[in-house]
């Protein structure tokens, strides 16, 4: 469950991050837009001021032109005529400048119309002023009197002032509208940014909470895992102790049983011996009694004696066998209890001496034992001696009569283990017996060789105590190969399987 929820929070984490980024981008965009807008607003303000200034300059210039013209009309002095001309030129320039300043206006329709009106009015005014001035120049003051009376009085200056005032108002209106609009947008954006910031904070808070929760869960899961580990170790230790104890009990039991079995066996053996003594005395007495009775037929006595002997023979054989089996069990249990002394062992030398000890048997069987190069091993010398002398003895024991016996011992090193093989060309082991032969008292093939079925059990016990394993490959009638695998640095296994 903890795993599932952590997976879901892991899924939502990128989503939360993406949302956060989008909000951040929006806030940044808004800020940039606001800056740009402010810049545009200030530009607009500057433009408006510029336009107003140009227009007022124009107004001033028109008034000046007019007054220069009047001065000329009154005096007829050439310098006023010249001043008038210069002013008129200045008016034209100012008009062009005003027009240019207002060219970027937003409301082109209203503004354009007003500008056109202004231009027309200014042009007309200048034309009128020029015309009157020209007349005064040509015909003196008299020429002026013939002019329509209102042409002098009624100046266009008023119209121009009006148009300029309108234009200024218009310009100011436009500015106000624009600033108002941008302010509103700015406010909206500010609100949006604030909401975004709040969202970001909320998101961060949620993320922190989620991270804290998942960390909490992780910590809890970790704790559970730790506890499980600890209890697992404890469980393993307990089981190991139990196993060890059980094994010890089995060994103890086997030891006690074999000891206790021996006690009655001593009686059986002892009294069988006594019975033999009694038998001798009995038959002596029988023959002496028969002699006294002049009974000359010893046949029934002889038959009785044979039956007696047969029965005693079976009893004694069975006792001997049982004694051997009990001894074997005792040997195995004792081997299980013996402390191993691990040392580095030259296996060539060890196997060689084991083979030498069997030299007589090998000679009898006409068999050869070859020992290949064998890697050394760390192990218990006595155990290894027992293992290989048992395997070699078996190989010699179960040779075929019709072939020359060849027994080979080979060895090799692998990654963490050393492998030894004892190969023979003897009678082999039936497939169905390949596991059984390691069981105590179990043997394979015809019972024509002496043995109790203990050797391989013993070997297996020893190999396992050394931390290794033993397996067998065999072709029935062709030979067998026993493979002993031992760890490079043999570790003592206290819980070997013992009978």
């Amino acid at each position, binding site marked *: 469950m903890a795993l599932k929820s952590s997976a879901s929070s892991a899924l939502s984490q990128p989503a939360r991050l993406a949302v956060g980024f989008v909000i951040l981008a929006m806030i940044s965009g808004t800020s940039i837009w606001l800056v740009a807008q402010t810049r545009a607003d200030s530009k607009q303000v500057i433009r408006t001021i510029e336009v107003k200034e140009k227009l007022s300059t124009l107004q001033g210039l028109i008034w000046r032109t007019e007054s220069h013209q009047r001065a000329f009309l009154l005096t007829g002095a050439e310098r006023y005529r010249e001043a008038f001309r210069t002013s008129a030129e200045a008016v034209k320039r100012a008009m062009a400048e005003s027009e240019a300043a207002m060219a970027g206006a937003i409301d082109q329709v209203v503004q354009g119309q007003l500008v056109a009106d202004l231009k027309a009015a200014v042009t007309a005014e200048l034309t009128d002023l020029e015309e009157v001035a020209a007349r005064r120049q040509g015909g003196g003051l008299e020429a002026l009197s013939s002019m329509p009376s209102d042409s002098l009085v009624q100046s266009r200056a008023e119209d121009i002032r009006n148009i300029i005032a309108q234009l200024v108002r218009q310009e100011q209106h436009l500015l106000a509208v624009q600033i108002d609009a941008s302010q509103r947008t700015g406010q909206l954006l500010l609100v949006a940014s604030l909401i975004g910031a709040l969202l970001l904070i909320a998101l961060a808070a949620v993320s922190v909470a989620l991270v804290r929760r998942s960390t909490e869960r992780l910590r809890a899961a970790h704790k559970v895992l730790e506890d499980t580990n600890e209890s697992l170790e404890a469980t393993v230790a307990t089981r190991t102790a139990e196993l060890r104890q059980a094994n010890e009990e089995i060994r103890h039991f086997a030891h006690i049983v074999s*000891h206790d079995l*021996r*006690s*009655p*066996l*001593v*009686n059986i*053996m*002892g*009294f*069988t*011996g*006594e019975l033999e003594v009694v038998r001798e005395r009995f038959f002596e007495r029988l023959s002496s009694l028969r002699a006294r009775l002049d009974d000359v037929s010893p046949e029934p006595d002889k038959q009785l004696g044979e039956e007696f002997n047969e029965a005693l023979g079976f009893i004694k054989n069975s006792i001997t066998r049982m*004694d051997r089996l*009990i*001894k074997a069990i005792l040997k195995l249990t004792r081997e299980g209890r013996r402390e191993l002394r691990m040392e580095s062992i030259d296996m060539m030398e060890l196997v060689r001496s084991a083979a030498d000890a069997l030299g007589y048997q090998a000679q009898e069987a006409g068999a050869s034992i070859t020992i290949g190069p064998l890697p050394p091993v760390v192990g218990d010398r006595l155990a290894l001696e027992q293992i290989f002398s048992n395997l070699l003895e078996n190989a010699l024991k179960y040779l075929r009569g019709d072939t020359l016996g060849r027994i080979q011992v080979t060895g090799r090193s692998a990654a963490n283990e050393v492998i030894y093989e004892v190969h023979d060309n003897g009678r082999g082991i039936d497939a169905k017996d390949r596991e059984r032969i390691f069981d105590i008292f179990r043997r394979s093939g015809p019972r024509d060789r002496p043995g109790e079925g203990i050797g391989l059990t013993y070997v297996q016990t020893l190999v396992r105590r050394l931390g290794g394993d033993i397996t067998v490959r065999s072709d029935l009638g062709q030979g067998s190969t026993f493979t002993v695998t031992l760890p490079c640095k043999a570790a003592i296994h206290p819980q070997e399987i013992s009978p």
Partner: protein
Amino acid sequence: MIPKHVTIIMIEDDEGHARLIEKNIRRAGVRNEIVSFVDGTSAIAYLFASDGSGAKRAGQAFLILLDLNLPDMSGADILKRLKTSEQLKRSPVVVLTTTDDQAEIQRCYDLGCNVYITKPVDYDSFANSIRQLGLFFSVVQVPENP
């Protein structure tokens, strides 16, 4: 030859073993009386008599054959009582048992046993050992109980 009045006390729970031991001791030529007990209680009752001090056994001489594995008590307990008894402490005690545990052997000698013999498990050596023990009995000196 040990004097006739020395009594061999055999404390052995296995009657078969007791009989075989007796037979083989006899074969060594020992003719002394052998008194057998199959448990510790009756043996103690006999040795220490009714008052439990062993004073009634004054003037008698015992040679004690003791098995350690008894049904009712440990042979070592009997050994301890014998060797701490003022009357019986000088009687030779031969521990004859199946155990060959070194700790057990040491303990018995510490408690004052005179000879410790492990019963051989095969009969031939068993019979042989007992016969030798019988021969040993025939030469050993046994003091009388005070």
